[in-house]
């Protein structure tokens, strides 16, 4: 039996997972292998050190804080779940509403016919440009129209 397998058996022995036959094989090997004996001694020492630390008591505040966390958790979880549905639905509704309003505005402001140049010009001259603005300069340089506005 090679030492690699023996160390696996030692590990099982520490874990209480070595059967009787395995134990006999292990002892037989250990009787003639100082390296594996040392490994077992050190592993036992390590296990002993590990187990020498006793459990600590959790702080008294832990239990109430856990109970409070799950009381809040589901409530927020419900709101979160609701928002996950409501927000996309509201966004979709807003988009549909926007398209609908856009359609109505288009119908209200669009020219009655493509050939009606007057309607287009009337839309162009609706606003009064502030004195000195680019619109005012352009209207003045084009002559006529700007003066009529003022």
């Amino acid at each position, binding site marked *: 039996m090679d030492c690699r397998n023996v*160390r*696996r058996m*030692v*590990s*099982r022995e*520490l*874990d209480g*997972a070595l059967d009787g036959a395995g134990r006999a094989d292990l002892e037989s090997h250990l009787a003639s292998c100082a390296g594996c004996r*040392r*490994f077992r*001694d*050190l*592993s*036992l*020492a*390590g*296990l*002993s*050190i*590990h*187990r*020498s*630390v*006793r*459990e*600590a*008591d*959790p*702080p008294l*505040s*832990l*239990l109430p*804080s*856990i*109970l409070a*966390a*799950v009381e809040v*958790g589901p409530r927020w*979880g419900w709101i979160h779940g609701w928002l996950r549905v409501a927000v996309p639905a509201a966004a979709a509704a807003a988009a549909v509403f926007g398209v609908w309003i856009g359609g109505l505005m288009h119908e209200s402001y669009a020219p009655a016919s493509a050939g009606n140049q007057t309607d287009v010009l009337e839309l162009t001259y609706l606003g009064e440009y502030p004195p000195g603005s680019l619109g005012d300069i352009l209207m003045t340089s084009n002559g006529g129209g700007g003066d009529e506005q003022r």
Partner: protein
Amino acid sequence: MDDDADLMRRIAGGESNAFRTLVERYEKTGYNFFLRLTGNPEDAEDLTQELFVAIFRSAGRYRAEAPFKAFFYRIASNLSASHLRKRKLRAAPSIDEMVERGFDAASTRHEDDPALSLGGREMRRRYEEALSDLPRDWRIALELRVTGELTYEEIAAAMGKSVSAVESILVRARERIAEKLDDR
């Protein structure tokens, strides 16, 4: 006394008393598991809280065929791995520090205790150092085995590994520790 599976079924059904009973039964186990791995009481407290919140929320998915202990430690292992990954530069605590922070070193020792016969305090120091140098998964596996007393199968289920992988991890961890403990 209610068994754990029954408690989980009642928690899934919305019984808050059942959850309280489960927390009272396992909070010390969870807290000490995290305290050993992190060495920090505040972290251990936070992680224990996260653990129970996760158990509460996943109660509906718990299947009674699996032992509750494996279910409990699977969540605990995942939380530990995540926490240790975030804080990988932080050294593991010494046992002295852990005692200062709440652990109670066992007062009953036998004269044939290898920890004492092989050099006492120096051995402890080397053991702590060896433990802190182990890869994250190895430490968790060792803690699940030694402190949690889980079987290889339960550790495998908790860590999402095969049984042979778990056994190999434990052997390698012990070899690494033995090398560090060996002063020759």
